[in-house]
């Protein structure tokens, strides 16, 4: 009995180590501080890119909760300046790492891939917009 109990404890401990539960869906945690928000504008070419390649998942009514919590184009104008800068920085960081749109998504929808030109344009816009917010 003792060996069996020991074995079970061992297996449980091992399993605990392996299952580092990281797949946690967060609820919306964006704070709205209206007093110091700024408008974020995008139009023309940038709007076309965002509408076609980002907005499908990153909007208020999406079923992609994780995507919405990380970046929601519908609420970008409503969040605090600090959060706006953070979100824009994430856009740049994510594009630099080539993480968006996600690989799995592109397997189903290869036409969703961002072209190099689009990446450059989007990054440039995010840089310019966040620079303006930091002035």
């Amino acid at each position, binding site marked *: 009995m003792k060996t069996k109990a020991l074995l079970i404890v061992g297996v449980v401990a091992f399993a605990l180590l392996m299952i580092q539960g990281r797949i946690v869906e967060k609820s919306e945690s964006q704070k709205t501080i209206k007093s110091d928000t700024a408008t974020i504008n995008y139009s023309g070419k940038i709007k076309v890119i965002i509408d076609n390649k980002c907005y499908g998942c990153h909007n208020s009514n999406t079923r992609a909760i994780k995507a919405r919590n990380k970046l929601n184009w519908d609420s970008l104008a409503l969040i605090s300046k*600090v959060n706006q800068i953070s979100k824009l920085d994430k856009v740049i960081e994510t594009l630099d790492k080539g993480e968006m749109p996600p690989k799995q998504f592109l397997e189903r929808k290869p036409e969703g891939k961002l072209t190099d030109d689009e990446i450059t344009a989007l990054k440039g816009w995010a840089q310019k917009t966040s620079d303006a917010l930091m002035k």
Partner: protein
Amino acid sequence: MKWVKSLLVLMAILLVIIQFIPVKLPSNSTDSRNDLISAEKLVGEVPTILRTSCYDCHSNQTHYPWYAHVAPVSWLVSSDVEEGRQKLNLSEWSQYNKRRKISKLGDIKEQVETGEMPMSIYTFIHRKTKLTGEQKQIIIKWSESMANKLLQ
């Protein structure tokens, strides 16, 4: 009960074998030129909390206990530290631009607020790294005020 014995023996053998699979723990550096605490001249509780609860994964000053060198723990530690440093490396703080600093401070606040960081597997093993409610507030307030200061 015979199968239990053979299973234990098998596991022991397996444990020995996996020690030969090469794994490299991310290396440490004592260079603190770009370190958050020294660059921003942080004093008081904030640096203490950061050093205790964050620096093991989010700096180049990881303290590896002996068992961190033993597989399969070493695999986990290696990938966690690597990922942690990649997402936020407080030893390279000064190299972040202002925008990234603000963004990382926002992340720190959010992760601490939601209790996602420090990771529960980590605080389970390293009890003293678990943040108390009071410590969480200190970190949240500090990250907010520092982000706002950067904006001015």
